[in-house]
């Protein structure tokens, strides 16, 4: 079911954005694009921060933008998280958080404040000034400030781009959890394939101000119609649950939604939902199943699509029992193995190369 319908046109002398899309009630909508693709501008249009926007935005049966009427940002009840946090430097952490709460009093009791502060792990920072916080803390406070005003929709503009992968690993699952627990629709702007792979359920891929691809995340990552499939670090994402732990080896087994068993490094609790990200360049193919290989994950599949042919590389889609993987091979191996569409192959994935979150 759709939570919001947007049909936005913004024409500027140097640059224009044109996008028609729905925001689903469930799931995170990722807006992916490289710098200059218009993804942030699109988010600002939804937030009401851009002037001269044409078109329509209807959120939850409320018209935010119509032919004759336009709600201002403060009327839209959004939570906006900026790339650079933008905490007010003259206010303490708790005053920053209060700022939003006080201006949206009707919403206040809807979120348990203590719970959220604990979830964000910022309870101990309340009396500090923004200048006394680390990058990760700053961004967590900004998330708290945006959420505690109890917005109808959360808009995130590259909130993690200033953090390293380790910090991202801390905050990404948390954002996912937030989304699940608060069931608040989220728009997530990013130029990081990793981030959108782990967080988003639907994707808008922007190029030069226009939507190049609009669909669910798995498809967006592997479809030949999607620009993401041919990105440098293209990867497929599979979802599943942890089904087995091998403590001696520090290996867990993930049972994907389509029933494949994939071994990944690390011990995770049985039953936990995970997403696995497997880069096209970390996967190799063989025609027969190797029995003496160091590679733990050897799965049988069929080549279903040639996504891209380049001078030296071939990018293939392999269907492993309905799980779609991307595989990048040199053209040389492709020809030596005499591979082609509908060919039965064995997919080899090194466990250590799999990112799980």
């Amino acid at each position, binding site marked *: 079911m759709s939570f919001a319908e947007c049909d936005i046109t913004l024409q500027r002398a140097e640059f224009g954005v044109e996008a028609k899309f729905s925001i689903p009630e469930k799931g995170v909508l990722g807006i992916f694009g490289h710098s200059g693709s218009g993804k942030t501008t699109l988010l600002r249009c939804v937030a009401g*921060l851009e002037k001269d926007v044409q078109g329509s935005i209807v959120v939850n049966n409320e018209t935010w933008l119509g032919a004759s009427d336009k709600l201002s940002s403060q009327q839209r009840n959004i939570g906006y998280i900026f790339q650079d946090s933008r905490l*007010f430097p003259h206010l303490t952490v708790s005053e920053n958080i209060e*700022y939003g709460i006080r*201006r949206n009093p009707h919403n206040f009791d809807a979120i348990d404040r203590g719970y959220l502060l604990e979830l964000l792990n910022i309870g101990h920072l309340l009396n500090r000034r923004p200048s006394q916080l680390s990058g990760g803390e700053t961004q967590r406070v900004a998330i708290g400030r945006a959420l505690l005003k109890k917005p109808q929709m959360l808009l995130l503009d590259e909130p993690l781009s200033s953090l390293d992968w380790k910090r991202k690993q801390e905050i990404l699952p948390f954002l996912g959890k937030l989304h699940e627990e608060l069931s608040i629709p989220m728009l997530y702007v990013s130029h990081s394939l990793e981030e959108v792979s782990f967080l988003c359920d639907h994707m808008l891929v922007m190029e030069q101000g226009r939507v190049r691809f609009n669909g669910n995340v798995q498809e967006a990552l592997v479809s030949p119609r999607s620009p993401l499939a041919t990105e440098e670090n293209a990867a497929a994402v599979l979802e599943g649950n942890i089904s087995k732990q091998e403590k001696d080896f520090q290996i867990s087994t993930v049972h994907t939604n389509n029933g494949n068993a994939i071994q990944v490094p690390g011990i995770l609790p049985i039953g936990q939902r995970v997403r696995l990200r497997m880069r096209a360049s970390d996967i190799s193919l063989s025609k027969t199943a190797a029995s003496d290989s160091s590679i733990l994950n050897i799965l049988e599949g069929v080549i279903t699509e040639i996504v891209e042919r380049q001078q030296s590389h071939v990018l293939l889609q392999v269907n492993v029992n309905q799980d779609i993987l991307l595989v990048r091979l040199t053209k040389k191996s492709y020809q030596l193995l005499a591979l082609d569409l509908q060919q039965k192959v064995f997919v080899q994935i090194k466990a250590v190369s799999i990112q799980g979150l």
Partner: protein
Amino acid sequence: MFTELGPLILTAKLAAITTLILLVIGTPVAWWLANTKIRMKPVIEAVVALPIVLPPTVLGFYLLVILGPQGSIGGWWFELTGQTLTFSFSGLVIASVIYSFPFVVQPIQNAFESVGRDMMETAYTLGAKPLDAFFTVAVPLAKRGFLTGGVLGFAHTLGEFGVVLMVGGNIPGETRVVSIAIYDHVETLEYGQAHVMAGILISFAFVAMLFMYVANHRLKVEA
């Protein structure tokens, strides 16, 4: 002693009233200048800055013409109140406001510009209306600009001479400010009195500047 104290009190009163008026009317002008995108902006900025470079006598001459009983503003004022603006305290206030205008507007404008649109937008997304965001975000973040503008406006008004001489003359208790009084003392070779007043003015100016720089530094550390 009254003759010595009178000009001092008058000067302080003039500077205080002028600064207050300038903060009130200068703030919206500074905000507008900091945010406008109209092409005319450099022209308007140049006009605002004129009092910095013009000889005070030029400014004073035009003000004398405009504020005089035959002038546009002075005539209107005369009909309204039956008094002349020239050679009165009210006239001095108007003249000082114009004379010190850029000294208040420019620092506040610069401060607003460095606050930038980002913080205001953030306030809007948190539910603040524009005026609310202005007072709770832009003004507190620009407080150093207000401090600088206020102190400069005050100190600059203290030291004004040429404009006062043209518009206000030398009426004790009404327009006889410190700078005029010093000039008088020197003319009549009363160097002793001139020394006292000049000394007080120097000390005061120094204290004002010191206060501004110390406070500015403090505010910087806090933010």
